Structures are given as C-alpha cells and as structure tokens.
C-alpha cells in the first residue's frame, strides 16, 4: 500500500511499487472481448483450460498496492474494481479486504477503479462472478496489507514481528501492550515488501468482523437517499454538450438522407453529426445514426424530433415476431442437432405407458435499466477520457481506443455508479458513441443520453425461444424418457453473423445439464437466425430453460395426479454429485467441474427448505389461491422458490408471498444475498407477467414503460421471504448471487396459477391470459 492523504478519492493516487503478481494473459483481441462475456472455448481453444477467475481475461490480482492506500490520519481507502449496479459490490468487495486488514469500517473509504484490468484483474462485472472470483484474492490483499503494517510496527519497536498483531485499526505489541494506529504506520508500511502469497496468514473465519455478518450499511446508501450519488447520466464536464442520437430502427439499417434544417433551428441545438454505422457483426459497436448536440438534453431531444431522416432498413426489415414465433415452433417440432444423448429416447418413449408433450414460448426482453445507457467523453492532448455506467470498463476502453485509432493506454474509462445493469451495460456501444462525438467536436466534452425509446428500440435483447418438451412416463407417471428441443437465436450471432446454434454457454444454462434421474435423455438444438442484437439479460438462457423444464415437470406431476414438490424431488432422484461433463456441459459457468460439480442433494435441499418455509401442503388454501414450486441450478448456485398466488374471479392476479431458498455456498454479505433474491423475484414476476419486446417490420413495437411494462409495487409480491442455506465453511466454493434468483420464479408462478385455477400458462408473458 502507499501513503496517501485523506483527500484520496481516486485510486490513481496510489503509488504502485514493488508489484509482484501473477502473469497476465496478453494479447487480448476482439476474441478476448468475446471471452470477457464468458466464452472461453471459442477464444482460446488452443490453451489448456482455465477455470474461475483464472479463465477470465486478465485474471485476478491480490496486490495490496493496487487496492489499498492508508492516509496518515488513518483513513483506509480500498479500491473496488467491479462495477456497482445494485448488487452491493462496492460494499462487499472492500468489506473482504477490510476484514482481513483488521480495518475499522468507520474509517474505510471506497474508491472506484477505472477500467484497467492489467492493474486490477478482470473487471467484467457479469455472470454473477465478482464475489466468487475475488473473495480469495481480496482476502489475500487485505492480509498482505495487514502484514505490511505489522512488519512496520515491529521494525519501529525493534521487536520480532511474531510479537505484534493488527487489531481493529491498530497494531499491538503483545508483551508491552504498546499500540500504533494505522495512520502512524502508513508511511513505513508502504515501504515494506509485499509479502509472498504463500506466507500470508488468513484470518480464521470465526474471527471475521464483517464477512458473513450482513451488518454493514451500504457505502453509497446515504448518497443515494440524498440524491448525491452519481451515475453515468449525471456526468457534467465544463463546456459539455448534450447529445441524443437517432439510430437505425432496424438492425443493419443505414441513414440515406439527412435534412437537419429544422433541427438546427431548435433553440439550444449546436450541431448535427452523423455517426458511421459499424460493419456486422454488431459486437459492442455503435449502430450509427445521426446525433443532435445541444446545450441541454431537452434541446437535443427536440432537435432530434425535428430531423427529417430517410433510412435504408437493410436485410432485417421484415423481422416480425408473430411470423418468427411460428418459424421457431416449426423448427422445434422437427429433429435437429443432438447436443446430449443418454440412453435411447425413441425406444424408451415408444415403450412408455404414456407420452406427453408441451411447448413453451418466451419473447424477447429488454433490460430497461432505470438509468438508460449514458456516457460522456472528452479528448485532450491526444488522450480520451470517458465517464459512464459500464459493466465492462476494459471493453469500453479497448473499443473506444479501436474506434478512435488510439492506444488503449491513452484512453481512461471512469466508472460511475450504474443505475441498473442486468447485462445491458456490459455492452459499451453508448460509450463509443460519446467518444466518436467528442472527436467530431474537436475533443469537446459530449454526453450521450439514451432516451427510454432508444433503450427499448436499440438494446441487446434477451433471445426469443420455443422450448419443445416430450416425455414418456411409466405406469406411475414418472418420466423414463425426456426430449427437450430448445430453439433460440444465439448471443453468438452478435459476434459472428454465421452463428445459428445455441453455444455451450447457452446450453449449459439449464437445458443440457438438467440433472434429472431419467435414463433416456435427448437434448436437441435446431438452428435459428437472429434479426436483432441478441445480448444477455440477467440469468440469460436459464430463463426460458427453467420456465419450460420446471413447468413441464409440474405438468407431468399433474398428469400423474401427484404432489408437484414430491414429484419434482423424485424426478431429480436421490442426492448425488454429478460431473457437468457427464451431463454434456463443457461450460459449467466457467468453473472447474471438479470444484463445482452438480450436487442434486443441494438442489433437493433448497426445494425442501422453500416448501417447508412456505407451508407447502400443510394448509388448505382458500378458493382461487394456489402454490407453485420450482428449483433451478445456475451460476453454480441452487435456488428454489415457492410462489403463492391469488386469482380473483375476474382473473386478476396478486402474489401474497414468495419463499426463496438459496444455497450459494458461504456468503460475504447475507443482506445483499437477500436483497438480490428479492429483486430477482420481482424481476422474475415481471418476466412472467408483463415483459415482451416484439417486432413488426423489423422495428421494436414498444416505446416506453406504457407499452413495455415492468413490475410495479402493486404487481410485486407483498412479501418475499429469503432462506439462505448456511454456508459457514469459507473453504467451500462460492456460488453466484446476482442472477440465479430469476429463473425459478416464472415457472413457480405459473405452477401456482395452475394450482389456483387449473389454467396452464405456456406462453409468456401472462398479461391478460387469465382475464375472464
């Protein structure tokens, strides 16, 4: 660590010296950026397989010099290198460091790292990875800094280091009781060598002050409550212009004629600038279009409205969601590429007592982060600075550099708070737009703000899918043969125009790795061509897969006349540990198959805990009420939900209560695990009841929160109870938290509706399907 004054607010003030850390992966290409979203098999097929943080671009570091600085007044500044988008990482990550550092949380300040993966390790805040990938490096980081303080104190007192111990912001000499505060030791500690990793003493978890307690308030809580917190959209720079952009309404479209005469007459409008479209594939690049720059956002919006533009819509002009759904259904009903084949489905199904089939549909979704994408940029003396709400600041940096023809070393990306992320802000197209516009204005600061229409019209959408399931059951109704055909345009189409099949990453999200005790399983994946930018949305392909699978199991239970919870447990089978590879899953959320096998015992347990907590089958519910259950394994965590619904005689749905049981291994901040489960539940309810992006003539039909509805307070569950399976052993692997709470909710909700009304929902959103 280094000495620093209390005014330290930027990690740049940290003096880097004596850096000893692991070698980083070099030579990141665009393939590397694709890898950044977790596609190791494509980008680095030649290299030996690496897992966890090792498998991510630029890996990890545990170097205290990069993360910790201590002022002479004792203020400890800890750098958070992951983006805060509501998961609480700016509290959680520094909390880990502070605990090992024996720092007094009241004297800890948090600074946000700029995009610099060589210095901080991977910063791509995605895939529910931050805590599980950085818990151990951050512990070591704090322990190393603590060791340096202890060494400095021992040196000062001329005593063996074994006689001193850091405790709550001071180092104590045991034999004499002498004490030195961290501030007094800061300067000397900074000159100590960084201890070797193997020599570090980590705290015994029973001595943790903060980790696992859930008692610390959010570091940004009061700033948020008082309106002081700064998001990308809040960026203000001296002399800044405000821009909005008219983008092609159809993917691949180009503007052919621009008449800006009226736009330029709008008071406050300064200039109209064209942004060149990017060649396919879409990647994270701007779509191009026409920008209006003005003295404030409203003038820019008025100016844009006054533009007269002619578009060539290009090859996706006929994209139509109704027609596309029919096409997906057609594909889902024919044999296709087999991606997993256990036993002999055809034979077993032919010999089954009964055959059942069902098809499920989930439309495109948009993240609709409350803060729409926004970023500001300026270029001075050949160096570009960008401020924005980036989930992947290094990708922003690399792509801004590429687009401007600069070295990434000359681009600085400042990460603000993110007003929601959900995967949308992993794609820094909006940051590149800001940089392009600043360049067009001779380096003047420019902020680009996306309106809600822009956000819904030009997002990176959750895929659209048809899930076709067939089962052959025995005389007790238990499935002995299972066929799942999953068809959806792939995320990879955004990076490769020829990609038509779901990739390992998508298949590994609950379709190929379905851990059921069924001897004959065939999973197939027909091709699908994308006509829009397919991206990732919180929990990604787990949403359609879990919806279909957990609904279908409930349908089989109903056909067998059995309790859905008992039936689900039977389908999962006896507790056992299964290798993901045995399930055909080569991805396993990027984690080691040995360290992270599929443990059906853990899946069973969350189902049992959720059911027990909800009072499953213990109570006779009033007419029109029902409970539904679903359990799903994703992001190497196990989650089950019991949803209780009430459907009134007119078909109006309310949700009195949801019980969620989560096993994500040991936890750092249980309160934020809870809040993520609560939020995921509400988002899952929104996916199930309201969410739909549809296309007509290549264009998104929804414009704002009136047509693209999301859950509001009245539609949200009245009560959400979260049950965390205790994970006291910090040697055990951690699971993801941000995303895996979503997938069980839509099927549990639809199963509850079935229990309440007898109506089976197979097409989302539910919207008016219950209306009588």
């Amino acid at each position, binding site marked *: 660590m280094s000495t620093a004054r209390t005014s330290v607010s930027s990690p740049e003030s940290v003096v880097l010296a004596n850096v000893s850390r692991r070698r980083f992966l070099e030579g990141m290409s665009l393939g590397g950026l694709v890898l950044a979203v977790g596609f190791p098999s494509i980008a680095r097929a030649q290299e030996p397989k690496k897992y966890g943080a090792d498998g991510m671009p630029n890996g990890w570091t545990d170097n205290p010099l990069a993360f910790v600085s201590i002022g002479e007044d004792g203020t400890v500044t800890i750098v958070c290198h992951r983006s*805060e988008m*509501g*998961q*609480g990482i700016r509290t959680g990550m520094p909390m880990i460091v502070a605990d090992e550092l024996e720092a007094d949380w009241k004297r800890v300040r948090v600074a946000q790292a700029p995009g610099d993966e060589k210095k901080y390790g991977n910063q791509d805040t995605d895939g529910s990875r931050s805590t599980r990938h950085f818990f151990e490096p951050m512990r070591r980081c704090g322990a190393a800094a603590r060791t340096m303080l202890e060494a400095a104190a021992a040196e000062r007192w001329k005593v063996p280091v074994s006689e001193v111990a850091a405790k709550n912001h001071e180092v104590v000499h045991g034999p004499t009781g002498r004490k030195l505060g961290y501030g007094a030791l800061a300067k000397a500690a900074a000159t100590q060598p960084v201890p070797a990793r193997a020599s570090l003493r980590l705290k015994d978890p029973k001595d943790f002050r903060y980790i696992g307690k859930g008692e610390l*308030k*959010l570091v*940004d*809580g*009061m700033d*948020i*409550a*008082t*309106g*002081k917190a*700064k*998001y990308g*959209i*809040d960026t*203000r720079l001296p002399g800044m212009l405000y821009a909005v952009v008219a983008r092609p309404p159809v993917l691949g479209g180009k503007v052919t004629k621009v008449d800006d005469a009226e736009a330029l007459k709008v*008071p*406050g409008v300064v200039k109209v600038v064209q942004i060149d479209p990017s060649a396919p594939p879409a990647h994270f690049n701007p779509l191009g279009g026409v920008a209006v720059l003005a*003295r*404030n*956002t*409203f*003038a820019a*919006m008025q100016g844009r409205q006054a533009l007269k533009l002619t578009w060539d819509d290009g090859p996706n002009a006929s994209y139509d969601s109704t027609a596309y759904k029919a096409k997906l259904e057609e594909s889902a009903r024919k044999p296709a590429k087999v991606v997993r084949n256990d036993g002999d489905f055809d034979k077993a199904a032919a010999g089954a007592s009964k055959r059942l089939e069902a098809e499920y549909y989930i439309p495109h979704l948009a*993240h*609709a*982060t*409350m*803060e*729409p994408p926004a970023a500001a940029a300026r270029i001075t003396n050949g160096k570009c600075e960008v401020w924005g709400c980036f989930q992947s600041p290094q990708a922003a940096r690399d792509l801004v550099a590429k687009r401007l023809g600069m070295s990434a070393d000359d681009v600085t990306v400042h990460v603000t*708070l*993110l*007003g*929601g*992320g*959900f995967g949308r802000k992993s794609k820094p197209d909006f940051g590149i737009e800001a940089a392009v516009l600043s360049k067009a204005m001779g380096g003047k600061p420019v902020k680009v*703000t996306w*309106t*809600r229409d822009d956000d819904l019209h030009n997002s990176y959408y959750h895929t659209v899918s048809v899930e076709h399931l067939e089962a052959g059951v025995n005389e007790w109704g238990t499935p002995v043969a299972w066929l799942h055909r999953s068809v959806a345009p792939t995320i990879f189409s955004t990076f490769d125009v020829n990609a038509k099949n779901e990739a390992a990453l998508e298949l590994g999200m609950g379709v190929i790795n379905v851990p059921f005790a069924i001897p004959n399983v065939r999973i197939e994946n027909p091709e699908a061509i994308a006509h829009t930018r397919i991206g990732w949305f919180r929990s990604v392909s787990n949403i359609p897969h879990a919806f279909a699978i957990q609904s279908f199991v409930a349908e089989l239970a109903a056909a067998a006349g059995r309790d859905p919870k008992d039936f689900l447990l039977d389908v999962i089978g006896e507790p056992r540990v299964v290798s993901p590879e045995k399930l055909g899953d080569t991805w396993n959320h990027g984690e080691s198959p040995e360290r992270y096998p599929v443990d059906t015992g853990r899946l069973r347990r969350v189902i049992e805990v959720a059911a027990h907590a909800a009072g499953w089958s213990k109570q006779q519910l009033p007419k029109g009420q029902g409970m539904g259950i679903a359990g799903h394994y994703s992001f190497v965590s196990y989650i089950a939900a019991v949803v209780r619904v009430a459907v009134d005689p007119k078909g109006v749905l309310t949700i009195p209560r949801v019980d969620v049981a989560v096993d994500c291994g040991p936890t750092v901040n249980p*309160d934020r695990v809870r*809040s993520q489960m*609560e*939020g995921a*539940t*509400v*988002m899952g309810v929104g996916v199930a009841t309201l969410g739909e992006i549809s296309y007509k003539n290549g264009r998104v039909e929804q414009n*704002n*929160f*009136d047509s693209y509805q*999301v*859950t*509001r*307070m*009245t539609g*949200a569950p*009245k009560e*959400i109870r979260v049950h965390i399976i205790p994970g006291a052993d910090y040697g055990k692997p951690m699971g993801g938290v941000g995303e895996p709470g979503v997938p069980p909710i839509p099927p549990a909700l639809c199963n509850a509706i079935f229990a309440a009304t007898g109506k089976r929902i197979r097409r989302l959103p539910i919207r008016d399907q219950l209306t009588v």
Partner: protein
Amino acid sequence: MVTLDINGKRQNVDVPGETPLLWALRDELGLTGSKFGCGLALCGACTVHIDGKATRSCITPISAVANSKIVTIGAIGGDAVGRALQAAWVDVGVPQCGYCQAGQIMSAAALLKRTPNPTDTQIDEAMDGNICRCGTYTRIRAAIKQAVAKGGAR
C-alpha cells in the same frame, strides 16, 4: 428567462418556457439528484415536490412552475419527514442500484405529509407510479413504515 424557487433559493434559467423542469434542474442548474427514466411521467424517477405535491418534473414545463415552491431530493432532508425517510432507507437497506430511489423518497414524503400513518393499500397506491427495476418494493414499504414508527411523520 424563467425564475424558479428551488429548495428555497430563487434561480434564473435561460431556456425556453416549455423546457421540462427536469432538464432545467439537471442540465442547467446541475441538480442531478432528480433522475430521468422515461420522459412521459411513467416511472417517477424525476419526482419533485411542487408546492408540497409530488410531481413528475419530466413533463412539467418550467413556465408552469414559475410561481411555485419546488423542492428536490437535495432538500427534502430539511424537514422531519424527509429526514426520517432517508434514515429509514439506509437502515432498511432499500437501495440496490439506487437510481430510482430519489423519486421513491419524494413520493413517500408526499404521502406521509398527506397521510401520516398510511395503510399498505395507501402505500401501494401512492408508490405505484414509481418503478424500481431492481425490485426493492418490499423494502420500500418496510422503510416507509419504519419512518412512520420512528415519528418522522407529522
């Protein structure tokens, strides 16, 4: 030029009268605590108080509020209700991303000033215009109740 009374201070803004208050606050005056979410009064992120009433600033032209008292999230902590709500928000751990919370607190403050001890239904009705995409609704309800219990409401 329009003169506005914002948080007890008279301020001049030199933009056309049809400019929504939100953009005058954010871009012209640097009061970025009030957020943009939809531009059509559909999400509540921009909520401010106009003469004590919760109002969506994104559709309110400045010309319409020239003679009104405007209070934003930056000053709502100046009274007991606002202060109690802000404290409850932190204590209950309401915020996730936090972006909508300024608007949520403004709506909650207007509710408690009008209805010091609201029922669940009254809370739901008053807060239904404020979207939280992170889904913090159960905690918002809990924080409002805590603020009431701790005597923030008049």
